[in-house]
């Protein structure tokens, strides 16, 4: 791993099995992602970009190869350790926001902090800060159904930020948004990267979204071009 790389992949392979048939998805990826980078992963459907994102985020495990993220060799971790590692190091931003509908914006943002040892007061303070960063402090008591798509995604970003993760992974964060809302979200991601130094790895089909990233990478048939 290079001295500045927060993500380092070597000969990373991932296959799935459909019955007895092995379906390779990633076919030997070598990749270094520098710290505080803003990377866009692009490629056609089925190219393996979401699979790569899942592996970097510790959601899935490689079939072979090494995978070092934020100083941890993920290929050697069991499920329980991976869960702890994700909680501490990764912030997720999904295409369809994935907020829990019965929780308010503040409660959704607070979810990752339930896994920490912070007391109620400290959790509350962090939630407020995260929502302030995304510009939604005044909507903290609103439920997702009372927010627009763009606002929901901002709450999701606040949830991703609240535990101060090393890396933010975003899977098509603007996929369900109109252009205006998408631009607002991309502005926020750029701000998080430039002002707060967050490493962001974003999967996207949207060329305009990819243009906002510092580095664009293309994946095709399981290999980086």
């Amino acid at each position, binding site marked *: 791993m290079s001295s500045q790389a927060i993500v380092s992949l070597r000969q990373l392979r991932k296959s799935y099995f459909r019955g007895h048939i092995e379906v390779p998805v990633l076919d030997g990826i070598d990749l270094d992602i520098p710290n505080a980078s803003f990377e866009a992963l692009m490629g056609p459907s089925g190219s393996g970009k979401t699979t790569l994102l899942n592996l970097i985020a510790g959601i899935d495990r490689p079939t072979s190869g090494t995978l070092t993220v934020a100083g941890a060799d993920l290929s050697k971790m069991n499920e329980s350790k991976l869960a702890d590692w994700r909680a501490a190091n990764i912030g997720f931003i999904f*295409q369809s926001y994935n907020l*829990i509908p019965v929780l308010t914006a503040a409660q959704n943002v607070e979810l990752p902090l339930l896994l920490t040892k912070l007391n109620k007061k400290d959790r509350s303070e962090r939630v407020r800060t995260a929502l302030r960063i995304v510009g939604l402090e005044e909507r903290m008591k609103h439920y997702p159904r009372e927010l627009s798509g763009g606002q929901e995604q901002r709450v999701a970003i606040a949830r991703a930020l609240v535990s101060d993760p090393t890396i933010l992974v975003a899977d098509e964060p603007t996929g369900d948004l109109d252009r205006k809302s998408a631009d607002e979200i991309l502005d926020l991601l750029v701000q998080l990267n430039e002002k707060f130094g967050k490493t962001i790895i974003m999967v996207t*089909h949207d060329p305009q979204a990819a243009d906002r990233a510092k580095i664009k990478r293309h994946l095709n048939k399981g290999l980086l071009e």
Partner: protein
Amino acid sequence: MNYFALVFKSAFRNRTRSIMTTAGMAVAVLSFLFLRTVVDVWNSGISAAAQDRLATRHKISITMTLPKTHYQKIIDRVPNLSGVTYANWFGAVYPPDEHGFFANFAINGDTYFKVYNELVIPPDQLQAWQEDRAGAVVGPQLAKKYGWKIGDRVTLRGTIYPGDWTFNVRAIYDTTSKSFDKSTFMFHWDYLNDAVSETRKEQIGFLGVRVADPRQGAQVARAIDELFASSDAETLTESERAFNLEFVSMYSAILTAMDVVSIVILLIMTLIVANTIAMGVRERAHEYGVLRAIGFKPKHLLAFVFGESTLIAVLGGCLGIAIAFPVISGFGKVIEDNLSGMFPYFSMNTSTMMIAGGLSLAVGLISAIVPADSNTPTTCAGRLALSSMS
């Protein structure tokens, strides 16, 4: 927010479904409590039986009579006794209400209330009754039901002893034990004996025997039965508890059926709660994937599922117990007024409520087992793969 708040909000996410399931659980617990109360009260006579009292009857059958001479022989020859009495089951009906059952006995007026001292009569009423050969002592529930007052003349129609029998209500008793029947009708044994045919005279139905030392009960019982072992009227002497048990055992099939039904109801509820939880888990499979991605572990998700299931079941259980109080109390009033011969009292035991509470918790825990181990993938990626992620 805390884990409990998350569980609570998730459990009532589909409000209609959760409320209906909780209400169903409440009804199931109410039914359980009602049935168990019936069984408990039915058995209460057994548990409330006096430790120092025996019952002596004809060895062959309770329906066969014993010679009255047995009474004096027991007094004269059996040691360690503190009281002996006798009585006959009269079995009459009250003509205006021929289907309204109540116990009625011809009793030895001098000794009966000494041996069965749970029955308490005001001294002036007791004296008035003892001075009137046709006098009757009635239970308060019976008096209330038929509107009888002290001084009323009451006619019963005999079934075992045919004919119309007229009595004067001279006393209304009370009881020191809630298990004692409050609707019994008692009159002088001599009044019966004077009126029956020669072949039926000087015959008694059973004896009540009080032992001086309860620890000597078995020996006294043996001594009584040995006394008449060679006679034409052999006796069977047993504890009051065993004697009462014989009556209850006649209905054992019904009681067993009630016991079984009360459990079956809760088993059905377990399946219903399990289905409700399973539907919720299926609907939220993707959400669980997101929680796993954030860092929640399988044990957290298991705790959420068990928490939701237990919450619904316990809430339903508590609601059922709360509703049971006025419902069983209301029914109890009706039952005590009309069926006090079988149910001298009808109220829930604390232990029955606690069993209901415990079973509610068990329903919640058992219901969660299958949904918690549902067929959605347990790995993080597997759960998220069910979603609309690209």
